[in-house]
């Protein structure tokens, strides 16, 4: 396990429920969460997608980006829900974190956006999942 470190990181998770209607049943650009203020410094460490409704739809695929800033901000991480990985309830699919140039690092007061993109999208005909974001942060002053 990671060594315990008094000045190391603690971890926190943020779960967002991704509905079928309005998100998975379209190929549109959709903001699941737009410009939420993150009032503490942290780093995005993991993205996991957990289906709670079996996905259907030939060739279905939807990519979700976590961005530092608004809907045009730097991509900090990404995950793709596909017909294949949404076919069995509960099976976890991990996304990818972008660490280059500190893209996954959020400063206190930065905003965060979770956005489904149009590129490469094919709509699902059924589905729904939980998006679990894991962050790590160090102890810091209140403000």
């Amino acid at each position, binding site marked *: 396990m*990671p060594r315990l*470190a008094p000045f190391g*990181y603690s971890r926190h998770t943020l779960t967002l429920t991704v509905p079928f209607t309005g998100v998975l049943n379209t190929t549109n650009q959709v903001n699941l969460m737009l410009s939420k203020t993150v009032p503490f410094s942290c780093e995005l460490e993991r993205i996991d997608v957990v289906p709670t409704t*079996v996905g259907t739809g030939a060739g279905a695929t939807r990519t979700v980006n976590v961005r530092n800033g608004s809907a045009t901000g730097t991509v900090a991480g990404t995950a793709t829900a596909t017909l294949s990985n949404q076919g069995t309830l*509960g099976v*976890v699919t991990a996304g990818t974190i972008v660490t280059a140039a500190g893209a996954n690092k959020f400063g206190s007061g930065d905003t965060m956006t979770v956005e489904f993109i149009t590129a490469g999208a094919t709509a699902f005909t059924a589905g729904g999942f939980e998006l679990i974001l894991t962050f790590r942060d160090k*102890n810091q002053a209140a403000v």
Partner: protein
Amino acid sequence: MGRGAYNYSRTILSLQIPSVAYLAATGAVNLMLSKTLGFACELERIDVVTTATASVAGSRVLNVRRGNATGTVVGTITLLLASQGTIGTVNAGVVGEGGVATGALPSFTDTDTITVQFAGSGTAFTGGGCELLLTLRDKNQAAA
């Protein structure tokens, strides 16, 4: 509440539990299978908050396991109509190795996985819905 520089911070991992395939069912089904946590921690609490009322009596047992669907049970809660009949009602589960409260909290290493699974059998609800809240506590640790 005890405070200390080398003590724990907490995080809450939430999962929505839909009616379809979970509450309105009787079979074994995984809500979350073998998710890597990525950090060492202990399971401290299990709570279920009712978000949609169930209309027909049901009974479903939900287990939290260390590992996959056959891993060691480290927490359990039984959902009954009495607990699912009013929106906002909070019900606490039992935390402990083997699903038995012993006082010692179950621990996960950073490479362990966690599974949330409804056990087989039970009685299906009609309607219903809830939010599962798992409280995890961890001490400061290195990035990896």
